[in-house]
């Protein structure tokens, strides 16, 4: 069960993640994007999801990653991500509710390059009963 006390709290990811050109190239290749000078709009999920996994599965929060389904996703992109960006990623648990035994959490992720907020994203994650 997800700890209800985690709602409203912000957790900082442990890692600083440097975006490499090869990561952008690989993401572009999947969608046949030939301009690899900036990352495609959904690229930041690569960073957010990996950080979510390490943050949200902590015993203090208690998300069961093996039963997770992605409900919805929103991005606000303040500038495109480029190779060389170094991100710290935070996760804020905005809401938690339970419906038919499923735990539904909405999580906000902010990606900062130094003091610059580059992308905010919101994910609704469903831990299936």
């Amino acid at each position, binding site marked *: 069960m997800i700890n209800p006390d985690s709602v409203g709290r912000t957790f900082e990811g442990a890692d600083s993640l440097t975006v490499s050109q090869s*990561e952008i190239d*690989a*993401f572009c*290749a*999947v*969608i*046949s*994007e030939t*301009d690899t000078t*900036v*990352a*495609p*709009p*959904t690229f930041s*999920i*690569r960073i957010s*999801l*990996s950080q979510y996994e390490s943050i949200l599965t902590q015993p203090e929060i208690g998300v069961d990653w093996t039963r997770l389904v*992605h*409900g*919805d*996703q*929103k*991005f*606000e*992109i303040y*500038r*495109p991500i480029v190779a060389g960006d170094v991100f710290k990623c935070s996760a804020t648990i905005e809401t938690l509710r339970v419906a038919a035994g499923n735990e539904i959490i909405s999580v906000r992720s902010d990606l900062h390059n130094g003091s610059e907020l580059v992308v905010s994203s*919101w994910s609704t994650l469903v831990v299936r009963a």
Partner: protein
Amino acid sequence: MVNIGGARMIEVGTVLVEKVFYVDRELLRAYADASGDQNPIHQNEEFALSVGLPNVIAHGMLTMALVGKYVTDWAGGSAAVKEYSARFTKPVIVPAGVKVDLTVSATVAEVNGNEVSLTLSATSAGVKVLGMAKAVVVK
């Protein structure tokens, strides 16, 4: 879209040309590596069936990435997108050895200066796979 004196006019209600993407297991593997999402429901049929899915399903975020490509092709590049959101209503089901369609279209919902809001539609095998899908681009 209306052409007036060579300029392309974008107005509320303008319907964009539909595009079909094709999704197969190879693309799911490539996306798993590119995104870091190695959940076996997107690659392993036996596992997908064991958790009650009809077959291997595409990553919702792969669907969103492909629809994003549709948006950026129209808007003039990846840097044009300011907001992008969608709900994953039904999975894109990807049986072995076939390419399934992801059919995408859009309508201009709002024009505010150089910002254009698009309402997006995405279906696979005739089933709506994204709900409330929307993008705001600078054009």
